């Protein structure tokens, strides 16, 4: 019996829930207070936006909405580590990443408001839109990374997957593709404990989800997903490696879905309250605020100002959303093909006339 291969999965955390630096290593970002403040602001904005979106849905002004409550460190950590020319392939709740990349809040609202124009967004034009069919985004990211590699562009693809989604073949095939083609790619498993009502433990009896990357021999780590420093720093390292021809990395970020799955869900049916209460104690925003305050970089007054600014920004976004004129019936047809085929042109005409006379 000979050992032919050995693997470890490491867990990385820099900032404790109480806002203290832990461990020996201090990542560069921990001393860059301006950047921390800016990212903190985005995290808070994301959360204020989130609450507003939920209330819009509750009052019938928005469709089903997938909350990002509790995911702010993972999302902003990813978004802040990426370059504009990189490509992001999201699932459906990574607003924090997208805000870092220039997507507007009003565009997010448009999308969940049932309007395709939300996906024609102000973020990088090469970024992927929201992706509902779970895990399919992962091989799209692999394809994008392949394009960058073939064209010898120093760009990377970053994609996310949930703990639930990490069970689906597409994610596993994407890992394999990243391995086979040595793709410039980072795959983040956002393990928030739940896939709608199915707990992480039911997805796999594996010790970690990160180890799915070992299947392809990829560097595979776990980070505290509520620790902005850990997420940002590890994604950055992985991106640097990828950009330099070192291939892909799998990062499992452990966080918690503090909200219902979406506004169509009622998590109290299947999830104990204590679990949620405990998770709130280690949520990602307060520890950054605490860290900034501990280092005399943040005050109660600044916090209040920020809250106010965020509320105003969100209000403005809601207004833009609500003032967007309705889409035209013909929009259904006009983006199907670059050039409308004959049969569809006929159907378009019928729909248009129906609209006029209806």
């Amino acid at each position, binding site marked *: 019996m000979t050992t032919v291969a050995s693997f470890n999965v490491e867990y990385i955390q820099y900032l404790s829930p109480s806002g203290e630096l832990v461990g020996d290593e201090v990542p560069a970002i921990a001393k860059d207070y301006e950047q921390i403040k800016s990212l903190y602001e985005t995290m808070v904005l994301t959360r204020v936006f989130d609450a507003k979106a939920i209330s819009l849905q509750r009052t019938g002004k928005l*469709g089903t909405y997938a909350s990002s409550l509790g995911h702010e460190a993972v999302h902003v950590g990813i978004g802040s580590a990426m370059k504009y020319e990189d490509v992001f392939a999201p699932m459906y709740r990574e607003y924090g990443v997208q805000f870092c990349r220039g997507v507007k809040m009003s565009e997010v609202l448009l999308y969940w408001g049932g*309007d395709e124009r939300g996906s024609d967004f102000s973020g990088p034009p090469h970024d992927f839109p929201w992706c509902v069919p779970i895990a399919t985004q992962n091989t799209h990211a692999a394809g994008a990374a392949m394009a960058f590699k073939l064209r010898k562009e120093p760009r990377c693809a970053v994609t996310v997957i949930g703990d639930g989604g990490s069970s689906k073949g597409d994610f596993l095939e994407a890992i394999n593709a990243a391995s086979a083609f040595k793709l410039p790619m980072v795959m983040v498993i956002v393990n928030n404990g739940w896939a709608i009502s*199915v707990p992480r433990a039911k997805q796999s009896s594996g010790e970690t989800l990160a180890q799915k990357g070992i299947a392809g021999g990829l560097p595979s780590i776990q980070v505290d997903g509520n620790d902005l420093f850990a997420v940002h720093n590890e994604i950055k390292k992985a991106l640097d490696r990828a950009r330099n021809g070192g291939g892909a990395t799998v990062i499992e970020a452990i966080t918690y879905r503090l909200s219902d799955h979406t506004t169509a869900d009622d998590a109290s049916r299947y999830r104990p309250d204590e679990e949620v209460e405990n998770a709130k104690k280690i949520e990602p925003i307060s520890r950054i605020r605490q860290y900034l305050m501990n280092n005399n970089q943040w005050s109660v007054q600044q916090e209040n100002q920020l809250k106010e600014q965020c509320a105003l920004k969100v209000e403005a976004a809601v207004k833009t959303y609500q003032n967007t004129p309705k889409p035209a019936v013909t929009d259904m047809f006009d983006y199907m093909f670059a050039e409308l085929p004959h049969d569809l042109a006929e159907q378009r005409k019928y729909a248009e006339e129906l609209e006029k006379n209806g």
Partner: protein
Amino acid sequence: MANITLVEAVSLALAYELEHDNDVVVLGEDVGINGGVFRATSGLAEKFGEERVIDTPLAEAMIAGMTIGMATQGMKPVAEAQFMGFIFPMVEHIVCHAARFRNRTRGRLSCPLVIRAPFGGGIHAPEHHSESVEAIFAHIPGIRVVIPSSPSRAYGLLLAAIRDPDPVLFLEPKRIYRLHKEEVIDDGEELPLDMCFELREGTDITLVTWGSMVKETLEAADKLAERGISAEVIDVATVSPIDMDTIQESVKKTGRCVIIQEAAKSCSVGSEIAANLAEHGLYSLMAPVKRVTGYDTIMPLFKLEKKYMPSVERILKAVDEVMEVS
């Protein structure tokens, strides 16, 4: 005897079969303690335990593959695809295996399984939650495709689907999951898997439909009655195999036919019915057949979904055109 909705009738049938047949298990994403995202499996895990009502990992190909594996070994699994928009990873297993094991092994192995999926639009759902792609499966030999359109038909057809020794795709029109209640007797009586239901007798025109479009079609028939036009309404119910005899009989009587479906037009179930009329009903037809369908476009996000789906108005317009011809 209870006054229940269509989705409750689904639960009732599942509970009945779980109770009476130990080989039956229910599996899928969120079907356990959560009772399914539409509550179609509500209460079942509590009543029958986690070994009979199984939450699976999130992997539809795996669900389909395991369902087939279980079925070949003598179980009667009832799997759920959470929405029809997420059934695509199951397609390889459905087409290449569920539909084929009996034929491939000359009867040695078979697939007495059911795959349930809520389908169709009109509930303001997000992207991929409103698809109607029954035609894909109706084209595939070896699998039955069944679509109930009332609580009692849901109960009776689902029981038959579970008991059927071959694979059945059971598509639930989610827009009418809770539309109205009906008295359903929980007596375990099944309905046949190869028969249309004549919902309304008529003499002037035959309206053929299935699933949630039964609602608009019956409304249109009411409006037509007010105008003195007597419409026969047929719920196809088993879109594979289609009971064309009943449809042909009806058209023989009325001489006119409009087919209403939510799905896109091209190469659809409606195409098959119209084609069959062109082949075998030509001499019955006093006017061209008309199809009122979803467009050959992507089902739009919900701001436009109503514009996509056939409306009472569109049905009436088609009927008018067909009635004009004499």
